[in-house]
């Protein structure tokens, strides 16, 4: 939609992650609490999010997609690597500069029941970011802005005095979106923003998000396990597995011609609401479970479940490589590209 061809590639990118890593320490039980290992939730991610686009981030539970979204907003501290937002290194920001970032880069959360304070009116909830950032000062100006925001997300401004329990799930999610937009952000992370809504209501929220993007020029990272929804809203799709982005490309390319065996299995497993297509389809049923993020397989981390694993997979950690124009995948089937695994790590894995 907005992926302007050509031009300066650097100006085009709003959010850039390089070698981004978020490891959570695992400690022993008892008093000493020694560090015994790490959950490698995000484990070396390179990702560009272009201005005005929607990048869909898909993967299954535990693959690190939410942690990645949080790390881009520095809601969790990366343990290595860097995140640039509009050219500024976010990982090095002071507390004050971080607050300015919080205005421009925001999150819409999954559960509209849990993310709104039940004792705060909807108006207060939406006004809170205005307060924090000192925007639209004065009671009247602030109330006017709240009314404007509620209207923007399709709610009647008169609901400002009501409490969250008076709203349905879809309406609450609209409130969450109004709050996120209060500070006029450039970048919105939608973390499973439609997951807890009914199908007919999901469509309302998806249409709203698209409409807002067009009107306000927003850039979205749309994190979801729902591949059909991601396909619907995204310009590009990134597929994550066990802490890594394993495939990135235009939404239509990734959904029609997935290149990484994991992406292929994932897409083949999505149930289609079409009985004839369901009868024709061949599912790639993966065996086994996702390995624990504390014991990531050496080399390609998908190799333990990959139906097409071969000799180089345990020995070389595959890097993202171009498999067709503007479509990259981290898989040795397209040529062995990547970092050789150190001998001791191979022995340990």
């Amino acid at each position, binding site marked *: 939609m907005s992926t302007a061809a050509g031009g300066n590639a650097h100006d085009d990118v709003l959010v850039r992650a390089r070698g981004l890593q978020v490891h959570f320490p695992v400690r022993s039980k008892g008093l000493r609490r020694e560090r015994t290992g790490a959950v490698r939730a995000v484990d070396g991610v390179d990702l560009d999010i272009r201005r005005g686009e929607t990048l869909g981030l898909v993967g299954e539970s535990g693959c690190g997609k939410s942690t990645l979204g949080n790390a881009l907003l520095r809601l969790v501290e990366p343990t290595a690597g860097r995140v640039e937002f509009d050219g500024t290194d976010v990982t090095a920001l002071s507390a004050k500069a971080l607050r300015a970032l919080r205005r421009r880069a925001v999150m819409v959360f999954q559960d509209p029941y849990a993310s709104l304070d039940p004792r705060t009116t909807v108006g207060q909830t939406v006004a809170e970011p205005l307060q924090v950032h000192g925007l639209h000062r004065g009671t009247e100006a602030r109330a006017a802005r709240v009314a404007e925001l509620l209207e923007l997300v399709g709610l009647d401004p008169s609901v400002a005095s009501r409490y969250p329990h008076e709203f349905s799930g879809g309406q609450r999610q609209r409130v969450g979106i109004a709050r996120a937009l209060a500070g006029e952000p450039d970048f919105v992370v939608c973390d499973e923003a439609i997951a807890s809504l009914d*199908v007919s*209501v999901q*469509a309302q929220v998806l249409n709203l998000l698209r409409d807002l993007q067009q009107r306000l020029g927003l850039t979205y990272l749309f994190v979801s396990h729902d591949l*059909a929804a991601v396909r619907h809203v995204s310009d590009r799709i990134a597929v994550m597995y066990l802490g890594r982005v394993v495939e990135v490309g235009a939404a239509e390319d990734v959904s029609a011609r997935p290149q990484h065996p994991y992406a292929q299995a994932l897409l083949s497993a999505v149930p*289609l609401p079409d009985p004839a297509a369901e009868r024709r389809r061949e599912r790639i049923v993966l065996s086994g479970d996702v390995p624990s993020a504390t014991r990531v397989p050496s080399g390609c981390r998908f190799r333990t479940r990959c139906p097409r694993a071969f000799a180089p997979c345990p020995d070389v950690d595959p890097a993202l490589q171009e498999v067709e124009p503007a479509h990259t995948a981290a898989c040795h089937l397209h040529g062995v590209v990547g970092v050789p695994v150190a001998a001791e790590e191979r022995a340990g894995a």
Partner: protein
Amino acid sequence: MSEPVLAVEDLRVRMDTPRGTAHIVNGLSYSVAPGETVAVVGESGSGKSVSVMALLGLLPKRAEVTGSARFRGRDLLAMRERELRAVRGDGVGMVFQDPMTSLNPVLSIGRQLTEGLLAHRRVSGKKEARERAAQLLADVGLPDPRAALDRFPHELSGGMRQRVVIAIALAGDPALLIADEATTALDVTVQAQILDLVERLQAEHATAVVWITHDLGVVAGIADRVLVMYGGRCVEDGTVDDVFERPAHPYTQGLLGSLPQLHDGDGGGPRELVAIGGTPPPPTDLPPGCVFWPRCPVRGDERCAGEQPPLTAVGGGGGGPVPHRAATFYDAARDAGEVGS
């Protein structure tokens, strides 16, 4: 078609609440034949889960259940608790959404599997029960089933737990399997494994399956027949092909239109989703006419607002053995004819 395993007739569930009487299920009728899968679809609050809990006597006492539900000829709704308990473990298997809450966290997998086998005297003793339990775990594709017997639910992944729940449900060699959002909490690749498993087991044992879900994709994949619920009523039923390809009720049409598609249609890029405005009516305050009327974009007949449309055969259907019916005064086929498409 052979004698149905389950025949539900005019099932109604009412419950008194502080906000008035909730009419949760309002006259539901369907039957399931051996080896057949009937999917009940609907959004939250449509009454789909309550309708099956009512069959098995799992609702609180204050719920008022009327109608009949003949399971192998005997009315489940007229049974005493003791008889029902026998049926639950020995004729009907149940799989619920969250495997963590349907398993007991402090009992080993083996204990939970053998409990039912021993209680219903399907085995002669503990040793045989353990053998049979290991066999059941192997059937549902649990790796190393013998070792799994001594493990606890928290030691297994979500997909593995749901396999255990299915193994428990199948322990009584049920004629009827009821699955209520059984794969909703699982990732798609794991869901694919579980759906494959259920289809395989069903083919082997000619089990009748009632599959309750909100996921129309899952329905398209596994069901023979579909029943679309809204506001506690069946608004449309028929074969999956009829209902998905020629939806007749405006609600079914809206539901299918609001689904994002993974693959593009003929038009190229993704189309705008046709959302259904508004929200479902609360069961304490159902509209007097068609339940969908307040949200309906069509309102094709003056009777819609005040009169409840009965389930009637849809014109222009396949005309096969399974009727395609919809509870609407609006005739989509006639309307299309008028437009001339």
